[in-house]
């Protein structure tokens, strides 16, 4: 188990922490924008920088004050940090205990064919897999990864992401996966910590973080683009009725009448009601402001009165006439999709 307790570090113009986190077996994704302290977190655990305060323990032993080489913390650096003067094989052998281990790892990470190349002759994906093999060859007690997918092209990124997913499942050490990409964080993490301005804003399962964000920042950064202020106009047994401008929304959240709340809705949960559907569910009416064709889905911005809502809809689920800017459309927002972040 990797445990961070009240960890702090201050830089000119940036305060990191206090941060408390723990990872047992399994993967913790750390998600945050650039400048949120992701690299600092990694550097503190790896031993590249010393904390101003707090504690890092790995399987019970304290890491603070120990040099990098005595920590048994494996790190996969952003661009791989492969030794340029060694072949891929020599890189892995540098860390490995035996030649068998090199071949085993090369097989597992599918790099047998490129072992005799220098890093400069490897593709981005190959580089990252060699870096991963090298790190695992040292048999670390925990594994930290710094955005290993960020510089890769989409198909290769997706493939390596799949491989990482399967690899992580086969490891029984704590893994910390640092990224600014919500998809990668969600896919690879058993748990997800969202970092903002040096602080952990929320730690939970990916589903919980995405669907029940605890701050407006977490909501926006994890894809709940529709964040809004609303007044509670009615309380019901199964939730409440919210009013945003002149639009009424239902929520399953239990909030007191008369309070103002900050709420959010993921665009994927907003449905476009087809022209000929019977009005069985409560719907909003609005005008399409902008429609972006993302390929497998349309991202539509619809003005419902003075509330602007973004919906992400599947092309096959909608009437093509409804996606044109200027068209008046009906939207349905399920009550359980309206998450209340905070009341005041």
């Amino acid at each position, binding site marked *: 188990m990797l445990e961070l307790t009240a960890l702090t570090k201050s830089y000119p113009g940036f305060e990191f922490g206090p941060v408390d986190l723990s990872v047992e077996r399994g993967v913790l994704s750390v998600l945050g924008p650039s400048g949120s302290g992701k690299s600092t977190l990694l550097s503190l655990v*790896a*031993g*590249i920088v010393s904390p101003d305060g707090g504690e890092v323990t790995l399987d019970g032993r304290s890491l603070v004050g120990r*040099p*990098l*080489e*005595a*920590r*048994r*913390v*494996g*790190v996969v*650096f952003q*661009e791989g*940090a492969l*030794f*340029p*003067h060694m072949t891929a094989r020599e890189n892995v052998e*540098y*860390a490995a205990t035996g030649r068998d281990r090199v071949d085993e790892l090369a097989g597992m990470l599918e790099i047998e064919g490129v072992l005799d190349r220098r890093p400069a002759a490897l593709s981005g994906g190959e580089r990252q897999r060699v870096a991963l093999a*090298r*790190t695992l*060859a*040292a048999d*670390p007690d925990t594994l930290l990864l710094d955005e290993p997918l960020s510089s890769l092209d989409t198909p290769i990124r997706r493939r390596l992401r799949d491989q990482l997913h399967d690899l992580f499942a086969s490891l029984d050490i704590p893994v910390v996966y640092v990224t600014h990409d919500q998809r990668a964080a969600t896919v690879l993490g058993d748990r997800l910590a969202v970092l903002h301005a040096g602080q952990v804003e929320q730690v939970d399962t990916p589903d919980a973080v995405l669907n029940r964000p605890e701050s407006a920042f977490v909501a926006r950064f994890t894809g709940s683009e529709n964040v809004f202020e609303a007044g509670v106009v009615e309380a019901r047994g199964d939730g409440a009725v919210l009013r945003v401008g002149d639009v009424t929304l239902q929520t399953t959240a239990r909030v007191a009448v008369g309070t103002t709340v900050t709420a959010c809705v993921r665009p994927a949960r907003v449905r476009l009601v087809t022209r000929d559907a019977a009005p069985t569910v409560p719907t909003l009416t609005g005008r399409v402001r902008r429609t972006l064709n993302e390929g497998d889905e349309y991202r539509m911005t619809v003005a419902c009165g003075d509330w602007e809502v973004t919906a992400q809809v599947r092309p096959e689920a909608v009437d093509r006439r409804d996606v044109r800017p200027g068209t008046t459309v009906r939207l349905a927002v399920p009550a359980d999709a309206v998450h209340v972040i905070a009341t005041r």
Partner: protein
Amino acid sequence: ERLDWLSVAFLLGAVLLCYYLVPLVSLVVAQPPGAVLDRLTTPDVTAAVRTSVLTAAVSTALATVFGLPLAYWLARTEGRRSALVTALVVLPLVLPPIVSGMVLLTVVGPNTLLGSAATAVGVPLTRSVVGVVLAQTFVASPFVVVTAKAAVESVDRSLEYASRSLGKSRWTTFRRVTLPIAWPGILAGVTLGFARAIGEFGATIMLAYYPRTMPVQIWVSFTTRGLDEAFPIAVVLLGVAVATLVVIN
């Protein structure tokens, strides 16, 4: 108008290049090669070559042994202390060599505490091979330190972190990661240091007019027997300079 500006700039640069090139070519063609070769074997010349090569080799070795650790430390340390130390290293580099010779004389000169003590035990620090080495080391070692520092700085620190996080010590990391990658730059620094040492004149002439190094011998030949006598040594030193360029590129 744009063309005019470009032409003028081009012309200025070309003039400067000619100013470098013409005298160098002139040196080589000024004297028949046979005459130069003949004079290369006179006792004065061979003695000077021997003294220069020996002292420059020793100075460069000293500069490397003492300078590399300093270069590594400077490359991997930030902050005020390191900036101050860097300034101290650069100072002998911008100090006129003749002044370097003077400042060394104030410490190791015959009338100083250190100088007289050394002479008493039979190792005079001036007018001796040791004096030449002291002068050359003072002047040439900053080149080694500054160039090696830049070479180490160009090695991505994350490579060192990666090596250490794989369980390797600082020393192993230096030996197997930093040094091999920085090697071309360090070699360039050592070569520059050697070139600077073998060409040292101002500080050497202050500390050790005798035994004569090649630059001092040029000066002596020039003042006592005219320019012709100095040619063979000048050609040798030009050869060293060209060889240096080849190594550092």
